[in-house]
C-alpha cells in the first residue's frame, strides 16, 4: 500500500492503481464519458483529466487522464484545479458544438457552466460521442462485431462495410451501455433488430416471454457449456418451477411433522 494526496487529503491505495478508481472510492465527482469498468480505459473523452505533481517536481504540474494514470507513492492530485476545470469546460464546449442535441452532453456541460457552445455548431451532429464503450465491450465479449471506422472528424462506429455484422449475436450490450443512447434497436413479435441485422428471440416454452436472442443463447450454450434448455424458460417461469419443487418437499415435511 502507498499513500497519495487527493485534494489535500491523504489516501491509501495500491501501488499502480489507476487514479480514477481511487478518486471514485473517495466519492469525489470527476466526470467521465468513455469509462466503463468492464473494459480497459481508453482515454478518449479526457474529462477525467486531473492535475498531478510531486514535491520533487519543483512546482511543475502535469495534466493526466486519471483513468489511465497509475498511482505512485507521494503523488499529489488535484481533481478540480483551475486549469483542469477550464479544460473540462473547453472539452464540454467542443462536445456541445458537435452533439448539440444530446441531453447527456447538455446536462454535463451545464454542470460545468457551459450553457451554450462558443464554437461552431455542427449542423448534422449526431449523438455518437465516439467514446467507443460499445466497440470495446463488443471486443471484450469476444464478438468484435462493430468497430470504429474512418478517422478524425469523420470517424464513426459501424459494423464492417456497413452491412449486417456476421459476428453480432444481438446481446444489446452496445446499445445498453451507450452513454448517449445513440445506438438504436427494435424489439417486438419475438424479434430483435440491431445494426440492420434481425434476430429471433428465444421464447419461454411456458409463457412465451423473451429474454435473449437465439444466437446469443446458442453462443453461450456452446462456448460456456450451459445446457440450452436453461434458456428455454423465462426467469419467472423458472422461479415458479423452483417454488413447485421446493413446495412439494416442504409439504411433505409439513405432513410428516403434523
Amino acid at each position, binding site marked *: 500500500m502507498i499513500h497519495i494526496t487527493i485534494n489535500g487529503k491523504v489516501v491509501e491505495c495500491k501501488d499502480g492503481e489507476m487514479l480514477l478508481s481511487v478518486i471514485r472510492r473517495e466519492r469525489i465527482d470527476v466526470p467521465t464519458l468513455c469509462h466503463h469498468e468492464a*473494459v480497459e480505459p481508453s482515454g478518449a473523452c479526457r474529462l477525467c483529466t486531473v492535475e498531478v505533481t510531486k514535491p520533487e517536481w519543483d512546482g511543475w504540474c502535469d495534466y493526466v487522464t486519471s483513468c489511465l494514470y497509475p498511482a505512485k507513492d507521494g503523488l499529489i492530485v488535484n481533481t478540480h484545479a483551475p486549469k483542469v476545470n477550464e479544460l473540462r469546460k473547453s472539452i464540454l464546449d467542443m462536445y456541445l458544438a458537435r452533439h448539440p442535441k444530446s441531453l447527456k452532453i447538455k446536462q454535463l456541460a451545464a454542470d460545468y457552466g457551459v450553457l451554450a457552445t462558443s464554437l461552431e455548431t455542427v449542423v448534422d451532429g449526431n449523438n455518437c460521442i465516439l467514446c467507443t464503450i460499445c466497440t470495446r465491450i463488443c471486443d471484450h465479449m469476444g464478438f468484435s462485431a462493430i468497430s470504429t471506422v474512418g478517422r478524425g472528424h469523420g470517424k464513426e462506429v459501424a459494423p464492417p462495410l456497413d452491412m449486417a455484422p456476421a459476428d453480432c449475436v444481438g446481446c444489446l450490450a452496445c446499445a445498453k451501455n451507450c452513454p448517449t443512447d445513440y445506438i438504436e434497436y427494435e424489439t417486438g413479435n419475438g424479434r430483435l433488430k440491431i445494426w440492420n441485422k434481425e434476430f429471433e428471440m428465444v421464447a419461454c416454452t411456458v409463457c412465451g416471454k423473451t429474454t435473449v436472442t437465439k444466437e446469443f443463447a446458442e453462443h453461450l450454450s456452446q462456448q460456456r457449456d450451459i445446457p440450452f434448455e436453461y434458456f428455454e424458460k423465462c426467469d*419467472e417461469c423458472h422461479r415458479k418451477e423452483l417454488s413447485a419443487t421446493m413446495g412439494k418437499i416442504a409439504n411433505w415435511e409439513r405432513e410428516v411433522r403434523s
Partner: protein
Amino acid sequence: MNFRFIVKPELCIGCRSCELACSFTHAIENVRSLTRISPIDGGFKDLWVPVTCLQCDDAACIKSCLVDALKRNPVTGAVELNQEVCVNCMACVAACPFGCAILDTQHDMVVKCDLCGGDPACAHFCPTKALEWKPIEVKKKQAV
C-alpha cells in the same frame, strides 16, 4: 465461523416482509430496488416458498457472464454481481435455471441476491424464521 442461509418454506406465511427488507436494503438513492426474494405459491394450501438465489456451486450465471461481472464472494459464498462491470446483456438472466438473476426495470439493471454482503436483511425481518442466517458447525471427523 461459516454461516448458511436457510429457507424453511413450511414456516413461511407469505407476509412478504422479506421483499420489503430486500427492496429497502438495496435501494439506490432512496429509490427502492427490485426485491431479490419473493414468496411464491408452492402449489399447496397455505404454502409459500420464498424463492431466491441458491448460490449454486457450478453457477450458470457465472459461466454465462462474458465480462466477468459475476464473482463468488469467498467469505459469504454468495455470487455477487458487480454493477460497475455489468453490461446488461441479460446472459445471466437467461441462463439461470432458477430465474434468480432478474432485471430491475426501474433502475434498468440486472440484480441478484448477494446475501447483503454477509448479513441478509430478509432473515432479520422474517417474523416466522422461515428465513435464517445461521452459523453452521463443521462436524469434526471422529477418530476411529
